[in-house]
């Protein structure tokens, strides 16, 4: 076999693998969408019919009336956005402090922060809940948001990316007469936009998604988030899967939208090497 045919074969193989991979990655989505437009009985029909004979768009409005989904969506938005904002502010501040300043025990500080990554929520659930109760935050937006407003991973990400901003920029600004917070605001923030984008996306996704914590903290319907609403569609031994899938499709839209929006920043944002000039 000549080199050329080998190359061409290799290319073809890669194409096949690529397309196969795309199908595998997306199959659950197709299934989800397909199930959302079937009747409850058809969901598990064999062989699978990707497009049902009669498309049940009505599942969508029906599902939405099964709970206060408008409220749940709104709450999820509020929580996800607030947590995202908290992460953007606090993690970036901390990341800057850790990346560009020397202060006693800085490394210890950083390690302590990182160590919180090793704690599964399940175990600190009760102590955290006690703190939240002490602060009078049970069943408030504050209670949903506050404990999640800083995430060690965000601190890490921001520290890495701010470290790559040349020191001389900061020094130049200092000589230009900028205050320390001014430097952060006018120099650091604009220069770590991609990382901020990545952090925003991850924070939004993870908190749009929160289940266990809101479940424990929210005790009234008007504070429930979307995943809670989705989970309570399941009864003791029955579930309207077609409607759950319809809600799942709707629930994906915000995250998907944010993803499309930040995708490029996301890829650029998680660089762990130098800032390109």
């Amino acid at each position: 076999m000549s080199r050329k045919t080998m190359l061409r074969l290799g290319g073809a193989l890669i194409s096949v693998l690529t397309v196969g991979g795309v199908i595998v990655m997306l199959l659950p989505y197709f299934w989800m969408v397909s199930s959302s437009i079937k009747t409850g009985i058809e969901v598990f029909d064999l062989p699978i019919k990707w497009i049902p004979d009669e498309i049940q768009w009505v599942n969508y409005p029906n599902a939405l009336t099964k709970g206060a989904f408008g409220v749940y969506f709104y709450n999820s938005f509020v929580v996800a956005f607030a947590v995202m904002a908290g992460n953007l502010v606090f993690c970036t501040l901390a990341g800057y402090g850790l990346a560009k300043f020397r202060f006693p025990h800085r490394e210890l500080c950083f390690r302590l922060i990182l160590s919180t990554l090793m704690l599964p929520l399940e175990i600190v659930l009760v102590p955290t809940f006690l703190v939240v109760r002490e602060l009078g935050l049970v069943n408030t937006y504050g209670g949903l948001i506050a404990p999640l407003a800083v995430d060690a991973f965000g601190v890490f990400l921001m520290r890495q990316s701010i470290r790559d901003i040349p020191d001389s920029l900061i020094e130049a600004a200092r000589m230009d007469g900028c205050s320390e917070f001014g430097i952060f605001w006018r120099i650091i923030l604009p220069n770590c936009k991609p990382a901020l984008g990545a952090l925003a996306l991850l924070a939004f996704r993870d908190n749009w998604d929160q289940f266990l914590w809101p479940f424990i903290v929210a005790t009234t319907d008007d504070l429930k988030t979307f995943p809670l609403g989705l989970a309570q569609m399941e009864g003791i031994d029955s579930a309207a899967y077609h409607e759950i899938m319809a809600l799942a499709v709707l629930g994906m839209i915000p995250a998907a939208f944010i993803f499309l929006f930040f995708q490029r920043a996301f890829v650029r944002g998680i660089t762990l090497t130098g800032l390109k000039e």
Partner: protein
Amino acid sequence: MDREIGVGRTSPSMVRRSASLLWRWGAGGGKSSLHSHLRWAGFFFVLPALIHLVIFKFYPMLQAFRLSFFRYDLMSPPVFTGLENYKLLWENPLFHQSFWVSVKYMFGVSIPEWFFALGLALLLNRRMPGRAVIRLAYFFPIAMSQIVVAMVWKFMYHPFGLVNTILETFGIGRINWLSMEESALPALIAIGIWRGIPLFGVIYLAGLQAIPKEYHEAAVIDGAGVFQRFFYVTIPLLLPTIMFVMVLSLLSAVKVFLNPLVMTEGGPNGTTRVLPYFIYETGFAFFRMGEAAAASMVLFVFLFGLTLIQLRLLRRGGVE
């Protein structure tokens, strides 16, 4: 009268005390020169996050540590029992099982992730028609929320679900994924990988794109082939990213909880009862918070050790 039960209170005075402690600590040398001011500034930037973490992470963590020496059913006052909880864990075969399930899950998910994600990143870093669309398709699972993932995959693994339908069209018999001891954990692992690849793929892709083109060009001139370039240029330059992915993937894999909760309830025969699920179940279903706290301390120490080893490797890999 409300008798105070539970783990204790955060009194305002305590917060004040620790704040003043931090205050003095941050002051450093205490000189009023510009540079101690800068030191202050650095500390001030970290302070909000630190305060937050002290309140919402370290304090609960300390409480968990304290609780691991108590018998505590969540409702009666805790009783100090010393190392009893650790002894109970040591004697509990279910804990041992859970520990190994977690280890299996953790490596089962993260090791394939390292390779698949790197492969994906290499693939998506190539020029090819429709690259933008393909990228989107691969990265899309990032956007799917956990609870939806759990629900959708539960149905996909149904004996009559999508996965089996596909297997049957290929002439492979039906596998009842979630009900066989042999297949339940691998089934969950597959979901973990499916969901993890895109995120780590993105991280790798970012790392790949940050490698200056010149290195590859130099290697081409030096006569390096595709594979040599990969091993002598790409891999060494990607090392920081690789290490980062390794640490992050292990840490996130070990925290899996919602999938076993929603899909298998830890079964069959405990084969998918990962440690976080064990902890949750012991604490909230069996009302043995102390034992659950002890289990989470074990998990914490295990992860901490693992991360330390990785960080050591990381440093040896020439990464600061």
